[in-house]
């Protein structure tokens, strides 16, 4: 049986109407989120969309100007101390002490996370092993590669076995191998019962890891759903056709528009269309263009990127103002 007080905690993360402003910039303009227990939730968006601000509020580092949020059933403002007993955070910039060894870093975090003394060293060793850092455990972190630092940073977020884990762009800047390893680690943690809220700029990452995705732009959630639902809103294949002259591109839009459901997007001399049946449509497109006497100069067929999702959802490219930079500036000034 559940204790009555725990019933409030039926979501790992619950946010309603979060707002935050830095000077003239509205970083969050009313964000609602709900992360179910034992699931992975991805905030997908470009730089400056407000993802990091959301993470900072949910991890008690920043107070919202308006709105509420609960993590593990505790209010992030009123019960911030209780929230901190239940979360792990790995930020964007590998926040570990470069002068300490890997083992010393994890032991320090273990002590500060209020582990009992007898657990501090074994937990550090266990995590070093898990993240393949045992050989480097007694070297100062400043001698680590970028990927090793990032692994240590994620390990540091797990020292106290937090039920809710926040990962701010965990794989940005990682090579393919390290990224795949980190994905496997995140999946394993979720299998063990951890709930994860992560931010990412990569659709593929959200697609591969998340149970649900919120697409964030300029401080608001512009779409929310399972990765499959999101992708079904825009077609699973992107075809881009480039021409020598803009006039040919304009004509080709008319030619190909009856072949796909959505209207093709033209930008200067290139045309982009999305489809659920890429190979079929590609053949039709080339036939029609040939029949109309239009010869493409470039052609590419690929999976949709974040940029494509954005274009499909907002009709614009992912070039929002960089709120992250504004926030940093603000810190420097205040």
């Amino acid at each position, binding site marked *: *049986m*559940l204790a009555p007080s*725990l*019933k409030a*905690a*039926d979501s790992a993360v619950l946010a309603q109407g979060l707002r935050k402003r*830095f000077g003239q910039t509205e970083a969050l303009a009313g964000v609602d989120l709900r992360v*179910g*227990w*034992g699931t992975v939730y991805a905030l997908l968006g470009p730089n400056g969309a407000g993802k990091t601000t959301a993470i*900072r509020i949910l*991890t*008690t*580092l*920043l107070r919202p100007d308006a709105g509420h949020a609960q993590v*593990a*059933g505790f209010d992030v403002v009123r019960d911030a*101390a209780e929230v*901190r*007993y*239940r*979360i792990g*955070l790995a*930020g*964007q*910039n*590998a*926040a*570990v*002490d*470069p*002068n*300490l060894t890997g083992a*010393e870093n994890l032991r*320090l*975090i273990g*002590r*500060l*996370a*209020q*582990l*009992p003394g007898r*657990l501090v060293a074994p*937990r550090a060793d266990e995590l070093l092993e898990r993240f393949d850092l045992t050989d480097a455990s007694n070297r*100062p972190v400043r001698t680590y590669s970028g990927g090793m630092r990032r692994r240590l940073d994620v390990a*540091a977020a797990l020292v*106290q*076995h*937090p*039920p809710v884990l926040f990962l701010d762009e965990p794989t940005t800047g990682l090579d393919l191998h390290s990224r795949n390893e980190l994905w496997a680690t995140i999946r394993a943690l979720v299998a063990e*019962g*951890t*709930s994860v809220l992560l931010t990412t700029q990569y659709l593929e990452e959200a697609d591969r890891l998340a149970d649900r995705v919120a697409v964030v732009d300029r401080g608001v959630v512009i779409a929310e759903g399972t990765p499959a639902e999101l992708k079904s809103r825009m077609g699973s294949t992107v075809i881009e056709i480039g021409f020598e002259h803009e006039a040919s591109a304009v004509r080709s839009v008319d030619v190909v528009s009856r072949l796909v459901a959505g209207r093709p997007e033209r930008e200067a001399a290139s045309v982009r269309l999305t489809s659920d049946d890429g190979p079929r449509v590609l053949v039709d497109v080339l036939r029609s263009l040939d029949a109309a006497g239009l010869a493409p100069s470039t052609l590419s067929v690929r999976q949709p990127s974040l940029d494509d999702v954005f274009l499909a959802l907002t009709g614009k490219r992912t070039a929002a103002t960089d709120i992250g930079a504004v*926030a940093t500036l*603000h*810190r*420097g000034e*205040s």
Partner: protein
Amino acid sequence: MSAAVTVAIPAADIQRRSPAVAAVRDAIAVAGRNLIAYRRVPQLLVFSTVQPVIFVLMFRYVFGGANSVPGFSYVDYLMPGIFVQTVVFGAMGTAIGLSADVKSGLLERFRALPMARSAVLAGRTLADLARNVFVVTLMAGVGFAVGFRVHTGPLGLLGALLLLLLFGYAMSWVFALVGLAVGDPETAQAAVFPLMAPLVFASSAFVPVNSMPNWLQVFANHQPVSVTASAARALVLGGDTASYLLQSVGWCAGILLVFAPLAVWRYRRLV
């Protein structure tokens, strides 16, 4: 759902400690972390030891002949001043170290942990105090080697050293606030020197205040570095001790009362 909901309880491994116990334990853990840096980055310790030793030798042998202070040999007058200068310059390290932690994101990690809110600053200033014990002891040794003599007795010397450590500790909190406010080490370095130079040089640390122009004497007579240097001097050389000692301890208490809460407040609201 019930299996999932139970994970809302923090991992059983976490130990709830009383706030006072946590504050002490966490501060010691952070201090330990900061002291390791002195072992791993020898420049840090070299900067805080070699520089004051050079100052002693320079003032003793280069300026020592030109400066004469009525009633004392210059080296006896100088040493307490050099001590004060050393602990003030050492406090610069507090600003630079903390601002580096702001910049690297380490403080963000600390602030998301269930640790005492005072621990990062208490640990940093505690580590700087430990460093000062080492540095001040070393300086006393160098001082004796170049002819410095205590005129009062061992208790006077001990009192002077304790006063210097207290003053250095108070200054660490001032520079902790500076470090948190500027948020990157280069700016911190640029910001602390203009703060420090008038305090250290427009003082009685190296020359008697009555050799300065009148307008400067007003400041130089009452500012914390001067009264601390004069108090330390009185403790080792004799003379009017009580007044300077009271003023110096008063300054230290005042600085701590103002700057420690300000620094903790700034730490809590770091963006």
